[in-house]
């Protein structure tokens, strides 16, 4: 969250069914944000000089999923934003099939128009609810080697995308050695509930945190790889990640399996999922 300065230059606004989308330029960056109050939740930012460089910590941490599988051939991304993740992944792996699910057609439009997001036969966009897509895909034979959940921001959580049942459906969609990366953001007491929920489905996971508000969960279907395996993959990927503006020296130290949450926090389920209430400060 940030308070845009007066130097902020609004270049596009769009009202969608779900939100107001604002595209603005500030400090040599072009950003997409979802609210127009003093406090805006920045969804996605791109450097104007070097559009390939990642701006946010959380997108860098999401790429940490590649340390668990350095060559994913089928990728599912739930939540588009400015399309930073699918754009980078399709450049790194031109042959990979990337499916992106985004509920809001207006976000897809803005990502294409202002953030260079470019769907093609290998990068497909599905404009629908992530939960419906995952449930439907689970009933087909479609499976993914990497699934990235990126549908949350600080302000709003689609509660049906943070339940044990949903994560079990996601698990069904992963290959036997599939990798999950989830961007979850939480720093409130939701953090504990979210942690026990992920743990109940995926067991041990890598928990990457920076700047308190950014949190990425990384899990693997056939068990978490050990540190030296991750370091090997980090070396393999170093050149490619450097093009995005970071590398193993930044990412590796974040890989942690420490449990810094209350293990007794109630698991979130379809029956019990007051995520936004738990996330609000009270």
């Amino acid at each position, binding site marked *: 969250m940030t308070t845009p300065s007066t130097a902020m230059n609004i270049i596009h606004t769009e009202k969608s069914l779900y939100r107001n989308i604002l595209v603005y330029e500030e400090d040599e960056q072009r950003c997409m944000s979802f609210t127009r109050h003093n406090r805006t939740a920045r969804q996605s930012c791109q450097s104007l000089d070097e559009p390939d460089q990642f701006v946010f910590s959380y997108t860098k941490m999401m790429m940490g999923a590649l340390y668990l599988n350095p060559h994913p051939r089928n990728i599912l991304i739930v939540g588009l934003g400015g399309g930073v993740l699918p754009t980078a992944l399709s450049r790194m792996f031109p042959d990979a099939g990337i499916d992106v699910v985004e*509920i809001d057609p207006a976000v897809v439009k803005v990502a294409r128009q202002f953030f260079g997001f470019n769907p093609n036969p290998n990068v497909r966009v599905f404009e629908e609810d992530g939960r*419906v897509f995952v449930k439907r895909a689970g009933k087909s034979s479609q499976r993914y080697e990497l699934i990235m959940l990126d549908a949350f921001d600080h302000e709003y959580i*689609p509660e*049906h995308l943070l339940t044990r049942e949903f994560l079990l459906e996601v698990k069904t969609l992963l290959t036997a050695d599939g990798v999950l990366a989830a961007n979850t953001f939480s720093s409130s007491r939701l953090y504990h509930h979210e942690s026990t929920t992920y743990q109940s489905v995926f067991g041990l996971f890598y928990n990457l945190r920076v700047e308190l508000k950014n949190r990425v969960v990384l899990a693997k279907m056939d068990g978490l790889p050990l540190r030296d395996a991750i370091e090997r993959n980090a070396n393999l990927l170093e050149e490619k990640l450097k093009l995005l503006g970071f590398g193993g020296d930044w990412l590796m130290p974040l890989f942690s399996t420490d449990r810094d949450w209350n293990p007794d926090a109630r698991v979130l389920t379809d029956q*019990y999922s007051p995520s936004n209430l738990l996330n609000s400060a009270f």
Partner: protein
Amino acid sequence: MDRFFIFLIAGWSGFFVMAIELLSGRILAPNFGNSIHVWGGVITVFMLALALGYLLGGRWSLYDPSLRRLALILIAGAAAAIPVMLLGDPVLDWVFDLIQDPRYGSLLSATLLFFIPTTLAGMVSPYAVRLLVDQSQLSGHLAGLLYFCSTFGSAAGTLLTSFYLVLYFEINQILTGLIGISLLLGLLTIFPGNSKNASRQSV
């Protein structure tokens, strides 16, 4: 005392409907998402069911109306909500496989699960008006009072469910509580001593 129960039933029925409507969005979300069209489907079904309920409730009030029968409507509405808990998942999964488009999927699911209990809840208000009114010049006043109770109950049901109940309870626990209170209120109303025929008393 009869009037007290009539207003109480109308108010509780309003609470019941809105609490269930809010939970219905939750119940449908795992299969159909919570896009705006899912809410559109839910609200449409509830409105249509209430509309039909008003029609039926008013019609039924022509035939020997009584407080006891009003209580029976309440009990029937609660009983009709029980399948939401028992059959909810299989019905939702069946519709999910049957219909690809989440708009029509949520519309059909909401119809199957919520139409009957909501119709019965809709019958309460016009039926209650019939029990209250004995002089035509008071009819507007009494209908106003009754709508006040019913809609105030709806507001309370909306607020309590979305602000607090979902924070402490599972959906099925909340449903059980709602159904339990309806049954209890219905039985208390029917209980001997309160079973006088309201229309006869008021003539």
